């Protein structure tokens, strides 16, 4: 359940940003979670609710934007979307793929006051 650690890291980033950008409360937070990031969105929501209590982000709306997996295929040269890391290229069936997207785990935007 490393999502708890990830949410602790989010709070840590929010506190640093609060000091830097002069805000005292986070009302809405948008997180990007890639399909291959290793984090489970539902688990992130559950953990954020627990970890944010008593912080500047308590009761903030926690919104997750999931990003699809993306890979570049060495056989057909196309950039393709993947549902799973082990899926073959949907165009040519090759497994000669290099994952190029979907590993993100980022805080994108905040609504603050």
């Amino acid at each position: 359940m490393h999502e708890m650690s990830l949410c602790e890291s989010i709070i840590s980033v929010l506190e640093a940003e609060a000091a830097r950008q002069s805000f005292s409360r986070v009302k809405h937070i948008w997180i990007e979670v890639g399909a291959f990031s290793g984090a489970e969105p539902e688990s992130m929501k559950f953990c954020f609710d627990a970890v944010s209590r008593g912080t500047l982000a308590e009761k903030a709306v926690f919104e997750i934007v999931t990003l699809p997996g993306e890979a570049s295929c060495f056989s057909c040269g196309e950039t393709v979307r993947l549902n799973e890391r082990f899926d073959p290229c949907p165009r040519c069936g090759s497994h000669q793929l290099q994952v190029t997207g979907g590993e993100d785990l980022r805080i994108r935007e905040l609504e603050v006051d």
Partner: protein
Amino acid sequence: MCATCGCGSGETRIVPLNIGSVMDFKPISCGHGAHAPGLSKTRIVQIEQDILSKNDALAARNRAAFAAAGHFALNIVSSPGSGKTTLLERTIRDLSAALPIAVIEGDQETSNDAERIRAAGAQSIQINTGRGCHLDADMVGRAYDQLRPRTGSVLFIENVGNLVCPSSFDLGEAARVVLFSITEGEDKPLKYPDIFASADIVLVSKIDLQPYLDCDLALIEANIRRVNRKARIMHVSARSGDGLEHWYGWLGQSARQCVA
């Protein structure tokens, strides 16, 4: 401990090398602190920051410290019971006369593994993560400062037995080694693709058991290749010694390059 969610000090601890008090330290930040003073007008702030940025910065610091000291650092990851500690014990017994080895051990509880490593003849320090399911760069940096490996040592960081959570946390290692015993089933790389995708080396272990199992080694290799095109794959047995010459050869060569 934090009254809100239970995080905080009293969780992770490094077991001191000399028996004595246990050093507690806080996780990266629980953040349940005072609110920052500021303006009160609602606005949108774009921050575009990686959630793991703090861990990654600490991992970069570890990596620089390891490189400066000529320590070739390896993050050893596997499910519980696939033979990480046994492989390290054997590696230490076979190599430590020629190659100094130090080990940072990660487990939820007990110092059993650090004691096994010391009995095998290497420096070792134990991190107990409490309820934590993985090591992070902060824990490793603190343990490394206490351990002070000899110059030119290979530094093994034995992660908590877990094929999920450790995959996201860079510790500052030069290479990540995923250990995978043949009793675990050929489809393990597909069930846990993130950790196998992040591997530089996959050690397929306990191959001495092959005559007693219906395990298809070619299928294991094919499944690893479905999620990782580049990792070097080696077949080893810490009990019989089969295949260890490849592991030792790679280790010795990499360690020499690291010091050079």
